[in-house]
């Protein structure tokens, strides 16, 4: 789950929580220009794919943008 409120997502039972950008726009940043926003979104999707492919024993929080 991509969420700007990681602990809330974990509270709801999500096993893989990917840290989103902000509450009103978890998957992008409208304050960036279109190119910057696109790059950020691509990084977030890649980070999320990496998270979903990571074997886990317990719930974990991922930094989707940094990944």
């Amino acid at each position, binding site marked *: 789950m991509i969420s*700007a*409120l*990681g602990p*809330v997502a974990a*509270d709801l039972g999500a096993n893989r929580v990917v840290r989103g950008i902000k*509450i009103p726009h978890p998957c992008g940043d409208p304050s960036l220009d279109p190119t910057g926003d696109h790059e950020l979104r691509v990084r977030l999707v890649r980070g999320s794919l990496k998270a979903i492919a990571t074997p886990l024993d317990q719930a974990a929080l991922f930094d989707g943008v940094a990944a």
Partner: protein
Amino acid sequence: MSKLELRTFDVDSVAFGERTALSGRALTVSKEELRAIVLADPAFSAVDIQLVRPGEAARITQITDVVEPRAKSGGTGGVFPGLLSPVEPAGNGRTDRLRGVAVVTSGEVPWLGTKGLFVAHDSVLDTAGPGADLHPYAGLHLLVFRFSFADGVDHEGLERAVLLAGEKIARTLALEAHDSEPTSVETRELAPPPTPLPRVVYAYQVQSQGVFMRSRLYGRVLDELVPTLVHPNELADGALTSGGLGGHGAKMHTWMHQNNAVVEGLIAGHGTRWDFAGVILHRGHFYLYEDKQRVALRIAETASLLGASGAIFTLGGAGNNTTEAMLAIQECERRGIKTVLLTWEHAGPDGSDYPLPFGVAEAVAIVSTGNLDEPLDLPAMDRVVGDKAIRVRPEIGGVAFPVDREIRLERRTLYAGAANPLGFGRTGSVES
């Protein structure tokens, strides 16, 4: 330390007349005088003034703020510092208040192209029937000012104009008390108790997120507020105010800040049951988790520095800001500071849903002030003060909703004052 002599003047009757004056407990109000005060501001093109007496069945529409008449009659500064008066120390000297009468500002705030959630929400308020239990104003004489707005003024200009108009009228009325005999006089100071008592702080969350849902401290907008400590006497003098626009049910009116029931309760028990250490003012609705944690840490650190062993929390707003309050409760409890939270619930129409959007295991003492999601069935009132229809569903551009009849509100956010968790009103919940 702050020391305030608060003089209360009970008002039992209000009537319109030629000159504004207080005679005993009878207030006469000159429409012409007050109209001139309002229309001196070019943001207004017209104003209609109506009186709703206690016991009347009226439905007031499109309320923007409610203000209790107050004025300084001694000491430094003036009421509503930073807006109506210069920024000077508030909460000292002598303040006069008229109890039993309130100034209500209202009007159809133009949407000016705004849409979705961030618009000037319309709402209604009933002075009789089941709706009268949801707010603290039903027993008061309500002087309702309905503004028409001049063209060409933006929302920032309108917000300031409406807020100032309410404050000017409130001060004008209270100044009439100066030479009268008060009903009661109370000296308020947080003097150290003769024998040590548990220190208690009040963590007061306000909502400030844009021009339609705003709070101000000494005139300053609180959208980026880092938690700060204030003296309850500053609240008594109107250092904390609401914003001038918007009528969402979660909006706390200036009247609620002036008369906050939690503050009043803590003052009443100060020195005998506890040692009231002050009010930690904060806001929620931050968009980053780090911002929310910062709020929590500042509240807990301030409470620790004050030597508090207890903290009372109230929510401001509806939803997102639960996170800040809960994280602060967690941090306080970890430091050994016992907490109590007063909050409404988002428990679904029948009250069976999970009641809060976020919670922590440390929040073990929660007082419910009612379910915000429960539909509200309201009978027709004898009279509508304002427009006979309000604008609902801003997310689809607005739909006219007639209110001059029996109505059902699916959401209580359409009812002014319904979502205040301050202990006003007579709602709660029953475990079943």
